[in-house]
């Protein structure tokens, strides 16, 4: 265990500074329409393609910067890291996967939780990191959300969770499955305290995350075009044995079927979240 700690620590201290959101260089090429724009313009447009509106996947650091006033916030429980309770080995050891992920991303797990102000209103935000093992939900994600909700209860402030996840973390097997129950349990306490919970579903939100906290918001909102579903599109395609209809499992599709309140362009994200908090709190 000591060895594990020291290697993890090493991983964090030797991380590749702050990883860039975009490929190296001054230009950004849109993943959807392939248009090339100056990186600065792209960043000023909240990493959304100025041409086709494609919302590039961004990480928690960028979301927190977008949402919190003056990019000021206190990160919660950065000390929590995965423990590999099952000593899981597939083609690779889970521990090795963790070390690689920590080193490559400079993050400690698939969610970052923080406390700050959104347009002057105090709030807790939990934001998932897709680049950390596919944003998969293991014990750390569950515990961080659980503690974030504890803080909401203590400070009587709203909760915002930004989901971006492939689902459960298989290497934690049933521990990972039970995080669905754990986070839902905590959300019932938040509901009893009548504190608003805004769930923001971003590309992609699937599996156990969809089947727990992502779908349990008082308000469920999503970014345009985000893939949202329980079963992944590949699995659904295998089940029905034919091509999927156009637009299947997009945010727009999910809204039309009644499971989202609204779809919000990233440049309006902060305004809408702040407005909702205000409307529900005053």
């Amino acid at each position, binding site marked *: 265990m000591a060895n594990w700690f020291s290697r993890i620590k090493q991983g964090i201290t030797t991380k590749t500074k702050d990883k860039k959101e975009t490929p190296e260089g001054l230009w950004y090429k849109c993943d959807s329409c392939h248009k090339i724009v100056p990186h600065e313009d792209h960043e000023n447009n909240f990493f959304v393609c100025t041409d086709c509106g494609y919302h590039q996947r961004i990480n928690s650091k960028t979301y927190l910067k977008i949402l919190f006033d003056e990019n000021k916030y206190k990160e919660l429980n950065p000390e*929590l890291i995965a423990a590999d309770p099952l000593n899981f080995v597939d083609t690779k050891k889970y521990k090795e996967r963790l070390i690689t992920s920590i080193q490559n991303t400079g993050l400690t797990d698939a969610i970052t939780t923080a406390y700050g102000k959104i347009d002057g209103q105090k709030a807790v935000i939990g934001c998932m990191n897709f680049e950390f093992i596919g944003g998969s939900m293991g014990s750390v994600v569950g515990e961080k959300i659980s503690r974030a909700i504890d803080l909401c209860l203590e400070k009587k402030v709203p909760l915002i969770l930004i989901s971006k996840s492939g689902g459960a973390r298989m290497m934690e*097997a049933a521990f990972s499955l039970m995080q669905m129950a754990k986070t839902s349990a*905590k959300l019932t306490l938040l509901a009893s305290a009548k504190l608003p919970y805004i769930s923001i579903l971003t590309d992609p939100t699937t599996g156990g995350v969809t089947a727990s906290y992502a779908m349990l918001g008082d308000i469920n909102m999503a970014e345009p075009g985000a893939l949202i579903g329980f079963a992944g599109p590949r699995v659904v395609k295998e089940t029905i044995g034919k091509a999927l209809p156009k637009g299947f499992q997009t945010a727009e599709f999910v809204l039309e079927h009644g499971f989202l309140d609204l779809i919000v362009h990233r440049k309006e994200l902060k305004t809408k979240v702040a407005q909702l908090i205000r409307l529900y709190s005053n």
Partner: protein
Amino acid sequence: MTHLDFEKPVIELCEQLEKAKQIAEKSNIDMSTSLTEIEKRIDITRKEIYKNLSPWQKVQISRHPERPYTLSYIQAITDNDFIELHGDRNVKDDKAIIGGIGSIDGESVMFIGHQKGNNTKMRQYRNFGMANPEGYRKALRLMKMAEKFNKPIITFIDTPGAFPGLEAEERGQGEAIARNLFEMFQLKVPVICVVIGEGASGGALGIGVGDKVFMLEYTWYSVISPESCSSILWRSWDYKEKAAEALKLTAKDMFSNKLIDGIIEEPIGGAHNNPDEMYKIVKRELKKYIAKLKLLSPEERIQKRIEKFCNMGVYDEIKN
């Protein structure tokens, strides 16, 4: 009777026994001692095999086509008064999750469970125990009704997973499961869940939040089936045994990891070898725990239920 490959030694002895019986009948010779001898050996061999099962073998038993399914348990443990209740009052009646009310020795209970079929036609009718959102919403409707009339809830879990179909996605499979998790935590009545076969992923957990969660001895419960785990992590279907091993999905592992509250022992040779005995054991355990849970107030039960699940998970803390 369908037999699993590792049950072969028992099958051979059973065949020997049959032959010996035939000889005894034809020849009028008293063979009772050798017959008892073979019967004894069958017993010992079966015990031996079932004592040393690998995780994958347990997965195979959990799927044994002659294993009793939800409705069989309900018929056997109720006072012949079970009435099945249909529909989610919204879209349709799901056939992969059934529910209804019946009494156990005079006490009314709401039953909910995944239902598999025992022949090709029924397996299709039951969609192989893979529920659509309507199934979870029917389950929730019945649980809310149980709460209204202050009746305990018993759920039987036996599913290879929630159905990954097109309509299931359109009608919000994820939301349906999530809603059940959320609502089950605040149910004021006692809730007992028993994994009687397969407990795969969110599809199982969707009716699996209880004051007591038990697994029968030869069942499995995890985030994914060993086959799917093999195909995703090993990128091949050939590592299911290894995956079953790695996932720690057996009742024993789940109990030692504190992810379930207890293991209900099965008769020798598994539930399918002696269903009547299995029903008796399950009925006894359910009665015992309903009585225990009724001693607590609704608030105490809810608090304990929440605390139990909130304690699940293992992580480290980096100290500076």
